């Protein structure tokens, strides 16, 4: 529905919205969310967040701990469904379709919107089986050869193939932290999602592994929409085109990454990126 919204409507929506500074909306949005509130029982974790994520864009969500950026991220593939007391209201559209609609199957949604977690969490299985698991349960390939190809292709895209091609049968948990995280990315890519959500994917990794992951993210951007939560502002600056700043459950400012880091419009954003709190 937002695909063809013209600039005028966008501006007026922004004016209505009132709170968020910058450009939370974009043309040709992949994901488009409006007035999202999230409650854990009686505690409200997210207040009235409206944000668009464009096609083939990397958008970084930054903000101090507990500001709700992870919660917001987990709304996008309905991972919050697993928490009984969590309630999500507002409109969340993927390609114009409401992902919280009754007829939307969360399993199908999660196949379209992949997720990479903060801590590498490979299955206690072989490297091959880790990557092959998603395609297998979704029946994406019709024979072993196709599956082999898909696994290889995913490992190539995740930049892991050279390190593991001789030991696809060894356990995925035996890899180093950075390799495990790339394995998790390969596993996510293997399902061929449209959007990849990343929840601080490099926070448990050393600078070298982080650099590899960041390079990978820039590479993946060609084919996927990527939403990344990060605590590292350098990382946000390096990998993302747009950056959204969250504060205490509210979306304070959204803008071109360059602009956010060089010339933030909002006081809170400025204080955060200059390290005066957070």
């Amino acid at each position, binding site marked *: 529905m937002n695909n063809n919204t013209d600039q005028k409507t966008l501006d007026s929506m922004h004016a209505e919205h009132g709170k968020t500074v910058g450009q939370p909306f974009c043309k040709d949005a992949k994901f488009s969310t409006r007035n999202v509130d999230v409650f854990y029982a009686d505690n409200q974790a997210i207040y009235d967040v409206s944000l668009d994520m464009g096609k083939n864009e990397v958008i970084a969500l930054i903000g101090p701990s507990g500001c709700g950026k992870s919660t917001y991220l987990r709304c996008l*593939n309905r*991972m919050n469904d*697993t928490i*009984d007391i969590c309630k999500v209201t507002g409109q969340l559209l993927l390609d114009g379709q409401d992902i919280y609609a009754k007829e939307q199957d969360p*399993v*199908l*949604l*999660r*196949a379209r919107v*992949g*997720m990479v*977690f903060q*801590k590498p*969490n*490979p*299955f*206690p*299985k072989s490297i091959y089986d880790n990557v092959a*698991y*998603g395609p297998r*349960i*979704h029946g994406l390939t019709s024979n072993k050869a196709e599956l082999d190809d898909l696994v290889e292709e995913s490992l190539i895209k995740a930049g892991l193939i050279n390190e593991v091609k001789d030991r696809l049968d060894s*356990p995925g*948990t035996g890899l180093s932290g950075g390799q495990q995280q790339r394995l*998790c990315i390969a*596993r*996510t890519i293997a*399902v061929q999602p449209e959007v990849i959500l990343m929840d601080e994917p490099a926070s448990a990794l050393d600078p070298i592994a982080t650099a590899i992951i960041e390079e990978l993210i820039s590479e993946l951007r060609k084919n996927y929409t990527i939403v990344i939560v990060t605590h590292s502002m350098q990382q946000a600056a390096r990998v993302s085109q747009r950056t959204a700043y969250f504060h205490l459950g509210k979306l304070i400012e959204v803008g071109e990454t360059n602009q956010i880091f060089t010339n933030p419009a909002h006081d809170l954003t400025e204080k955060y990126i200059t390290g005066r709190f957070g």
Partner: protein
Amino acid sequence: MIDKNTMTVKVEKSLKKRYLKEKIFKSMGFISVAVAFLFLLMLISDITIKALPAFVQTQIILQVDLNEQDLGITQQSSVDEIRQVDFRRVIRAALKKQFPQVKKRKQKKDLYSLVSVGAEYQLRDLVLENREILGTTLNVTFIADDDVDALIKGAIDRNDEESGRRVKDFKLNLIETLEKHGQIEKNFNWQFFSSGDSREPELAGIKGAVLGSLYTLLVTLLMTFPVAVSAAIYLEEFAPKNRMVDFIEININNLAAVPSIVFGLLGLAVFINFFELPRSAPIVGGIVLSLMTLPTIIIASRSAIKAVPPSLREAALGLGASKMQTVFHHVFPAALPGILTGTIIGMAQALGETAPLLMIGMVAFIVDIPQSVTDPATVLPIQVYLWADSPERGFLEKTSAAILVLIAFLITMNAIAIYLRKKFEKKW
């Protein structure tokens, strides 16, 4: 601010105290372990020492004359014909031949009671196995009576006064004569492992009870494991969190605390009286024990499932696995080692359980070795109880031996469980 030096002094002072506390705790822990181990050692060694004689059997070698005319059978006789022959006569004749001086009726009775009442069946089976021995005279090794056995093993002291001795002088003379001729032997007691219960201590074996326990536990395992694991998975992963589920949870915990004899009463009322399942059978015993084991395994399985890291669930869900796929592809395999540990604890409990089985008739005296789960049977702990309750001397050592077999059974079960657990843990 505290002065640097006084700070160091203070810390040093408190360090001593801290280390002392640690030392005290460590030594107390070591003592507790040592005491527990000592008790175990005492128990096992006491039982083993008492049980050892049970693994040895006293045997008497007699020369029997298997004259075909006297017996009224030939090598071509049918099995039924041979079965009808009174082999007791042959054994008595052999004893009389060896001690021709014994004439009085009471003395004859003593003479005949040197060998076990099972000797005639031993001879019959020997003839049935090889017919060629018919018509020959040969030495046969018979099981000695339990009194002879006790005397040979030293459980009855030959030097006691005759009035206080179970084996009187006349019989003692007979035994000593046999000993002098080298006709008394002590051999390993295979019979103990190959026969069922008996009123005669020298004939009683453990096989019936071992198989009874095996069948009972098999029924228990087959009944409990699928039900308990399904219940645990459902409660942990699928059940909505509401009052009804809380209520069920509390009641499962309560069930684990119900005295086991109550389950026996339930089994009697429901399975035997209402469903008319056979009395004294492992099938009923197994069902009753599975009721008792169910809460133990459910509770253990639930905590094993709870201990599976949530990141594993998230990983699967994040890839688009359904709830069911997440649980059965990832959570269940990860929880399996813990579930197996819980199962083995439950099964070990069931193996040692006596009270509920008393109520459903598994305490009966059963000679036949059970062939299936519907045959009357008894189980190891009840066999221990039955033998401990018997007045004959020979059962004393059998009781200890049965306890040893029970412990061996338990260790085997645990070993299998540990092996399985290790096997499944490897996948990590």
